[in-house]
């Protein structure tokens, strides 16, 4: 039977009502509060007891203090005089318990309590949340920008989908926390004028849902990276993930270690900040180092995102020696969409390359959810159509039968000339294929394209 229990700290900093009730409930179940960290709350098994808890806010304290300051200790002494003993503390948050039947509360003046909570919030939580909200809004703005410019590509990238989901939920959480606090404060100030303590709102369910969504999205993202991305992307993703964990543990660990060593508040704060900056820049340096190394070794140029050979190659359509060709295959996929680009050209790096040989470029858009199909097709159609207004070409409906497709368009110049680019619709795949200027696909070649790419 375990004697220690930990749970995630999913309460708002100012939610004294929720915290008090929660600690009282657990104490009655035989779990006594022992420690409050930044992320976890620890309890120790004890005799089930009906005791009172009180959450108090000592705004002058700091999470970097090695031990309670003389002033804070005076405050604790006063509380102890009325039976309130400290169960746990974390910086400005002090949790007291009292075994007396009907103790005098620590705060008997609601206006003063609201004032103490506000000072605490303004000195720590609110600035941190405000900076996080701004950063998150910037992240969302960048993600939405990518989504607007290249929606199919964006929704095909696990990182795109993951970031969009995370930014959205973070903004919701931070918005609710910040908005909820100021709304509560306004009401609490009014209630305090009447001598009433206004209960704090409980955002526990929202925080729990937010965290679950983040965890599910992270697992989905990592699974996608593991299954589909190229080795470099895998490496970068796992280095970033590992480093983030290291950063969190390193920063928090430094602070806790220096506290235990009795180092002063200012020294601890400076050292923790230095570790934070060093680790953050270290991560940047590691990513740059690996990217440069990968670029130097040609890994970025020849990156194979799609495992195995491309589904259609120049050799399937013409009698050519593939040794003189070079293939670039890039792309990714998510639970919604997949998009792969395959380029096959004569290798220009070879001695005396034969530039008269045909080339092939095509994009495969895999639609996983049927309701997205028409939207993807229209998007691909209009992308070319928009460019066509500038360059003088447009899509024209052609017979899909030779391609074995359900629908087909060919891009033609306004003067009727061919561009050799086709948009082909198959069951769950949309193909944009470009034969370049060296060849015009014959009916046999069109049938092979349908056979290889249609599914």
């Amino acid at each position: 039977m375990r004697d220690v229990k930990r749970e995630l700290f999913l309460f708002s900093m100012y939610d004294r009502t929720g915290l008090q009730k929660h600690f009282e409930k657990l104490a009655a179940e035989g779990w006594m509060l022992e420690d409050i960290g930044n992320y976890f709350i620890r309890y120790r098994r004890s005799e089930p007891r009906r005791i009172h808890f009180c959450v108090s806010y000592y705004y002058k304290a700091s999470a970097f203090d090695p031990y309670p300051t003389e002033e804070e200790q005076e405050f604790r002494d006063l509380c102890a005089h009325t039976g309130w003993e400290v169960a746990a503390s974390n910086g400005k948050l002090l949790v007291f318990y009292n075994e007396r039947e009907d103790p005098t509360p620590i705060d008997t003046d609601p206006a003063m309590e609201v004032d103490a909570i506000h000072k605490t919030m303004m000195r720590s939580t609110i600035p941190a949340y405000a900076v996080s909200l701004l950063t998150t809004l910037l992240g969302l703005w960048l993600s939405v920008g990518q989504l607007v410019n290249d929606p199919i590509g964006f929704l095909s990238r696990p990182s795109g989908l993951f970031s969009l989901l995370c930014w959205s939920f973070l903004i919701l959480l931070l918005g609710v926390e910040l908005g909820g606090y100021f709304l509560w404060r306004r009401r609490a100030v009014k209630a305090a004028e009447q001598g009433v303590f206004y209960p704090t709102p409980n955002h526990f369910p929202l925080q729990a849902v937010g965290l679950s969504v983040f965890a599910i999205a992270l697992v989905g993202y990592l699974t996608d990276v593991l299954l589909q991305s190229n080795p470099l992307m895998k490496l970068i993703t796992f280095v970033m993930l590992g480093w983030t964990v290291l950063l969190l543990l390193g920063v928090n660990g430094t602070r806790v270690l220096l506290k235990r060593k009795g180092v002063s508040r200012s020294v601890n704060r400076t050292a923790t900040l230095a570790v934070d900056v060093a680790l953050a820049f270290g991560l940047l340096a590691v990513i740059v180092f690996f990217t440069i190394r990968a670029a130097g070794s040609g890994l970025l140029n020849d990156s194979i995102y799609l495992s195995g050979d491309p589904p259609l190659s120049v050799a399937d359509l013409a009698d050519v020696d593939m040794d003189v060709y070079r293939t670039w295959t890039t792309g990714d996929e998510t639970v919604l969409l997949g998009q792969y680009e395959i380029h096959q050209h004569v290798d220009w790096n070879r001695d005396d390359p034969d530039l008269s040989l045909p080339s092939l470029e095509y994009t495969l858009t895999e639609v996983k959810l049927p309701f997205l199909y028409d939207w993807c097709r229209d998007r691909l159609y209009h992308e070319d159509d928009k460019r066509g207004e500038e360059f003088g070409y447009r899509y024209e409906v052609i017979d899909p039968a030779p391609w074995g497709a359900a629908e087909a368009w060919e891009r033609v110049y306004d003067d009727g000339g061919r561009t050799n680019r086709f948009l082909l619709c198959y069951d769950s795949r949309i193909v944009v294929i470009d034969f370049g200027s060296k060849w015009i696909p014959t009916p046999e070649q069109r049938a092979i394209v349908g056979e290889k790419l249609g599914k």
Partner: protein
Amino acid sequence: MPRLKFQTLTEQMFYVLLCLKTECCGMDILDRVPAMTQGRVSVGSGTLYNLLEQFLDAGMIRETKVEGRRRSYVLTEAGVKRLAEEYRRIAAQGEDYRRVFGEEEQK
């Protein structure tokens, strides 16, 4: 502004100041207020801690001695004056009450 805060004293503020007519420390105040009011008024330790700090800032009390972590305070002249003003305000309210209900009883 702290002084504006104390234009009208709450019941808890009034009794804390009243206790400080003679020198005493925070713990003494916590015991004296309920004793003085037969348990009708109690001051919480957190509230008292903040009140003492605000009274000090407003110059209504001053620190007299520090024994370990125990600090003692006493009313200043400004504090005595403010307490007297508050007493007069409360007394005037009492007078008003007696005048209204006293007249009704005579009828």
